[in-house]
């Protein structure tokens, strides 16, 4: 049984299976809005393959990370827009 990975999304702990992308983790925690657009509209992913940049979130304090291309790693700190 592969070991689950623990991350934090907006401060809340979340447990995911290895191979889960940060984006999938965010969405599976019930969040649909990953970011706010430049005119503050709620947005979620569109292409899910690294092209549209709608899935950007702050990961381990680095902004503008495309979460669809990043696998969850232990203790990752993920922050979405509010």
């Amino acid at each position, binding site marked *: 049984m592969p070991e689950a990975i623990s991350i934090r999304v907006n401060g809340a702990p979340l447990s995911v299976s290895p191979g889960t992308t940060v*984006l999938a983790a965010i969405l599976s925690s019930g969040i*649909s*809005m990953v970011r706010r*657009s*430049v005119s503050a509209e709620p947005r979620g992913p*569109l292409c*899910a393959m690294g*092209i549209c940049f709608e899935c950007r979130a702050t990961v381990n304090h*680095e902004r*503008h990370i495309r979460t669809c291309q990043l696998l969850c790693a232990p203790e990752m700190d993920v922050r979405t827009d509010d």
Partner: protein
Amino acid sequence: MINARKPSPHSYDVLVIGAGPAGIAAACSAAESGALVAVIDSNPRPGGQIWRGETREHAHTREAQSWLDKFAAQRIEVFTSTEIVDKIHPGLLLAQSNGAAREFAYKRLILCTGARELFLPFPGWTLPNVMGAGGLQALVKSGLPIAGKKVVVAGSGPLLLAVAAHLREHGAEICLIAEQSPFQRLASFAISLLLSKTKFTQALAIRRKLSGIPYKTSCWAIRAEGRDKLESVTLRRGSKIWKEPCDYLACGFHLVPNIELASLLGCEIRGGFVRVNQFQESSVQGIFCAGELTGIGGVDSAIIEGQIAGYAAAGESARTAQFSREKRSAAHFTDVLRRTFALREELRSLATPETIVCRCEDVQFSRLQSYPSWRAAKLQTRCGMGPCQGRICGPATQFLFGWKPESVRPPVFAAPLESLAQAGARASEQAVNQ
């Protein structure tokens, strides 16, 4: 000095960009011919879109299994989560992997950068849970639970069927599949599938998986509704308009090739695709292209072209002759796909004046209509100036307004400043060493 650490380049006979079916086939063929081969891919794992999530331990098709086994059997270096940033000079590319810069030197380059979905703007398309068809599938493969969720699949292309089948297998409730192409075109397409035993078998398998799901032709989504996220989709078919409550809308209008890197490297683009000769070599000597870059033809075409490119790049052009018959029928299929899933005129009128066209910069349709060119619109409205570098709104505005795209400038994908700066560090070093 930007970085104390100055990485020396990895150096290869054949460098393959993209680890989808085309890239995997190309790498195998080149390695088999004795070349030192590396493959670079932006995703965390190889497979591209079609084989996303396929592994040797859990392959869903015999074809994927067989190719992944071959891939593992050859001595090929694979660099995942790695994106090309820029060309340093001919034979040397700058890449970045999770922000760290890396260089790749090569004698021959094979571009297999695949395709992305074409998105057309319509009211509500920016709501959370409206995604591409391939997009939702990619998400589910990356760990998104979809069981029990209602999904409307819409847009155009054979991808819609594959996506619907896959989502259903994972427990989604597919409300319907809305294909914009008219019935007559699809009927001809279905008939053409009879020409290939494998395609026919695949089609029957998909049909079985989709039994009970309405497949409506000449049908498209005209609006997505919801407050903070999607709640329903309004569809149109002829004069009939109705609303489908749903959790997700998986909507994509067939595919456009990812030609940006090829363009940056100077490869001639014709009709939106990279022009190649019978050995898959582009107009730039030593740069080969295979797969969707040369025409949207699906996995079969990708594998054939990948093999041709791999052998040719490794100096074994004679071995490409064995593919000529398959190549011809793949080219024919590519042509059939193009004609079958061409976008109809009515889709140009989906957007209303308030509909956002450029999602990065929130530029509405009404602001764009009056401009004669992509560049004029870009300068005045910022459309296309966001982080996606026009990859989403570019093809849409080409369809809506007939605008031609501009030349590509680095970075190929948004990259940390210090990574972008590495290109010059190496260039300066070369100059000094000369």
